[in-house]
């Protein structure tokens, strides 16, 4: 991607989500992984600490040597909420559902796919994560039933 910010920095991350609030981060390869259909976190090459959302720095051992890993398999639904009102930029989107999945070693926060109705949801429900392409060349991910 040839996108550059005003300061000449790689701002690919601006494409993440329905509305982007920040474009500059040292984990902007997150976007490259989404492009290839993967939701990815990072693992410290020195101590093995796992991070989702991905981190560029390890707060356990202070290493900067990170490897990407794909979020795979089933997570358990920790909780969710269906919003009747949204903030600026999301008003056209309501109602939509945000949720948290627990994959054991890490958790993932995101949206529940629109095809899943609220009646189908229950705490503990196995779900998996799927990359979503949004209008305007934007990228996100959503949870579907496993």
């Amino acid at each position, binding site marked *: 991607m040839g996108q550059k910010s005003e300061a000449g920095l790689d701002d690919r*991350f601006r494409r*993440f*989500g*329905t*509305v*982007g*609030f*920040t474009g500059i*981060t040292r984990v902007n390869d997150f976007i490259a992984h989404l492009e290839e259909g993967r939701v990815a976190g990072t693992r410290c090459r020195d101590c093995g600490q796992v991070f*989702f*959302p991905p981190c560029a720095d390890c707060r356990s051992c202070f290493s900067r040597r990170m490897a990407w890993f794909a979020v795979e398999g089933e997570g358990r639904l*920790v*909780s*969710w*909420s*269906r*919003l*009747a*009102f*949204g*903030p*600026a*930029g*999301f*008003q056209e*989107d309501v109602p*939509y559902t*945000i*949720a*948290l999945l627990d994959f054991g070693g*890490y*958790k*993932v*926060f*995101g*949206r529940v796919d629109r095809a899943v109705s*609220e009646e189908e949801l*229950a*705490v*503990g429900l196995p779900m998996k994560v799927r990359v979503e392409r949004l209008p305007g060349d934007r990228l*996100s991910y959503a949870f579907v039933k496993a």
Partner: protein
Amino acid sequence: MRRVAVIGVGQSEFVRAYPGSIRELAFEAFREAMEDGGLKPAAIDASIVCSAPEYDRQRSPAGVIAEYLGLNPQPTFYVETLCSSSTTGVRLAAALIASGQHDVVAVIGFQKMSEISSAESQERMGRGADIQWESPFGTMMPAYYAMYARAHMAAYGTTLEDLALIRVKSSVYGRLNEKAVYRKEVTPAQLADPKDRMAGPVASPLRVGDCCANADGSSCLLLAAEDRARDCRKKPVWLLGVGSASASVNLTGRDLFTGLSVAREAARRAYRMAGVGPDDIDVAEVHDCFTIAELMAYEDLGFAEPGGGRELIRNRATYREGKIPVNVDGGLLSKGHPIGATGGSQVRTIVLQLRGEAGAMQVKEPRIGLVHNIGGVGLYGNVLILGIE
């Protein structure tokens, strides 16, 4: 370390839209606190100004407020931890006094939510969480507390009817509080009737009636060292314990979803410092920005076991005549929640209760009171324990 007391308290009325500027709003609470404590501005050694940022047009509000209150050339500074800003101010003031740097410090909390347009407010709401990893999904404060409510219901069988009982209790005391923004009665039937405004959906499972209202308002607390406190007009109310904690913003960094870890940790620290436990508390003010927040506070503070919170409200144990009266001033749900002023208002209520000056809301002869004030969705937590001799 010197002992610290609250020697003066003040609060503006909490209203939908204050017809004045932030400095004038701050003055409303300051005047009341100074009259309460019988002090002149020269007696104040330093001021700490507290609000949630980005609602104020004025950058660095401490400057204009200290000027308007007549608190130059004494030092002043601004502090924020969102909705717990003014109890963070109390913690810093107490440290400045205990260390001997100052003798009397004013903690001024304010928020003029109506300072910005509703469009600007909607925009700020979108940036209330982790803007890199959560806000792009369209998150809002009520939805996060709603996720805690859902998890609590699944784990312990707490019901929407239990949450409604908390709103009903709040309205009983909101009607008695002349400074509250919402003073109407709320009945369980209203929250159960899908056609009633109170039952309207906000973020499932939370309804309109489960959420506090925005408000404009200010609070002011005067804190003093022991030797100064003894000479004041009013009986000093001692700050016996202060506990603070933080947690990850992003829910992915948390393990507990049926309570707030910051509240548990801050309470543990405050109880230890004060040398008391939950059974010693005679009256409490908890951060009920949502009904579920009050229910979780019962458990996080040790008034009930985890999962036992609903029994307290079902048995009316948190009413004024109950075992542990909670939010008998109407709480955030009825008073309204002018973010930076809220913690100071909670402390004011406890001080008035301990002095026996709480009027129609007075609990019978309380000796020890507690304040639980939370910033963000369990991001920052402060617990204060206050007592009277």
